[in-house]
């Protein structure tokens, strides 16, 4: 057992599960989507991205790309949240929540692809 692979798989799967946790719930209800969840999702995704650095294989490049997509979506979602909460008078309305959650939904798809790739890679290894 390679401990590096354990950590790697752990973070990639955790990124997906946390993302799912944040995403689930009524799309426009701020009560169903907590800021702490988003914080955790961004954090774990960042860690997963950095872990994917420096892999020269084609699979590694693809994994990195999916992570970068997820980060892009999640950072955009956080930015929207921060701007809505602090820079506008309206605050986090239901429409803002809807766009934040849909962005995180996009990130979740990227994370799903990540996990699928990971599974494929593991399958092809046969060791």
């Amino acid at each position, binding site marked *: 057992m390679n401990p590096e692979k354990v950590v790697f798989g752990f973070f990639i799967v955790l990124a997906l599960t946390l993302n799912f946790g944040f995403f689930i719930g009524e799309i426009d209800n701020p009560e169903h989507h907590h*800021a*702490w969840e*988003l*914080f955790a999702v961004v*954090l774990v995704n*960042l*860690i997963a991205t*950095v*872990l994917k*650095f*420096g892999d*020269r294989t084609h699979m590694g490049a693809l994994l990195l790309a999916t992570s970068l997509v997820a980060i892009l979506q999640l950072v955009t979602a*956080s930015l929207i*949240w*921060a701007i809505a*909460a*602090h820079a506008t008078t309206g605050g986090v309305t239901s429409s803002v929540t809807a766009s934040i959650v849909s962005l995180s939904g996009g990130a979740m798809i990227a994370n799903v692809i990540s996990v699928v790739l990971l599974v494929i890679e593991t399958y092809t290894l046969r060791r």
Partner: protein
Amino acid sequence: MDNIVYLIMRRMRVPLLLLIGVYAVAMAGMVLIPARDAAGDPVPMSFFHAFYFVSYMSTTIGFGELPNEFTDAQRIWVAFCVFATVAVWVYAVGTLIALLQDSTFQRAITERRFRKRVRRLRDPFYLVCGYGQTGGALVRSLTDRHDHAVVIDIDPERVNLLKLDDQREYVPALCADACQPANLEAAGLQHALCKGVVALTNVNEVNLQIAIAAKLMHPRIKVICRADSHEIEANMASVGTDHIYDPFDTFALDMAIAIQAPCLTLLGDWLSGVEGEPLGEPIYPPSKGRWVLCGYGRFGKAMYRYLSEQDLALTVIEALPHKTGVPKEGVVHGRGTEAVTLEQAGIQDAVGLVAGTDNDADNLSIIMTALELNPDLFVVARENHLHNQILFDRVGAKVVMLPSRIIAERIRVRLGTPLLAEFLTFARYQEDNWACELVSRIAALVDDEAPHVWEVRVDEVDAPALCDEDRRGTAVTIAQLLCDPRARERSLPVIVLMRLHNDARRPLPEGAERIRTGDRLLCCGRAEASRCMTWTMRNPWVLRYVRTGETGPDGGVWRWLARRREQAHKAAPAKR
């Protein structure tokens, strides 16, 4: 490119992970600990404010406590976080700077820049492996003729030296082992414009390996090698190396030719000399009498072989005969630097001396001692190191043999003007009178500077006007091409040495010969004459002038007017 990005990513993985972790913990603490709003009521800090605060805290920018004054609980947390985040930041930045200074990283950057430069080369170039004396001389002569070169050398000092040398063209250089095919590939071995590979390292095996790699990776490429031993030469020839140069054999053969045909040697010297330098004087090595050879190493053996073919009596002086082996008779043991040994070898009644040891101090000492004993000697000196040039200039040797320069000259001629190399090979089979006549013709052409020697390709690129005339069936002769385009009754100071027509070589072609598309001409003369010839070959009006002497109307309107006038002229007599 990939190398650098991956290197950064790999090295920055741990610092970045630490940074993310510490930020997350600090932010989480800031959000968890209740803050106060402006009125003093407890409110939670938002993630946005936590991130904002941690960012400027960790980079020690320190804007103060925002958005409101902190509670003591927050300050306790911040007091811990400051040390953790700042330390991690310093670590991350330190790693990045260390990475930038890392030699592996630096090499990756230099190599990448080198690859990019080679890939962007838009002119034909030669790949020169080994930038020692020979390589340096070759690169200089190539760039002086505005040819391009790419250099590989294993010694970083020599690569730095190349950057200091003031070359006329930019020469990309890589410090790498030329034995490794990957490095040759980086230096453009498979580049479409790579015209040839020149292996000039001082290790025979490396040269051989370069030849093999070049022939396998780019089979149609020209490969030129330096070799010091006959065994390696045979090996190189077997892998298909185009030209192999052994400095000692080459020079010894030249000496043998000089004894038989001094004019021929002079002709070769003049034509392959560097343009603009004063013309050399002819040398007349004595063809009768006894020669003394000091040193029976690689050079001594080559000289012995070629001189004995000229039926000259030879005496060899060798200090270590058991190591080098010696001929059966006429051997004196010793170094030759002492008068005793030289007298023993009969220097007083000898006509020639070859100071051919591999030690410059010994050679100089031999020459000085020998000239004292017999001032009329014809002295051939072997100079091993270029930096002793100034001493060899003064010692009184008639001919100085510098291995690196000989090879560099030969390869330069071979690469720069391949037709000249063929012409000189042809000349070798001619009588000396033939050469003497040509030498006097050249001397009349140029004052006392070495002539400009160049190749003319009659094709659409270099001679569009000429090709156009040829297509129309108009004959343009060599004599017409040599007319001065400013006044056609004068002829340009040019001699056409050779014409290559359908792979048939015609040395010194007649003026009446017609030039056809696809021909190649080897010309020698003054540099400005070559520009005049280019003018004639490119400009149809100039070509018409040198052909017919007419300077007709050039523009469309003038031609139309001229045609009308001609028609009117024809019509007028008919009316009458």
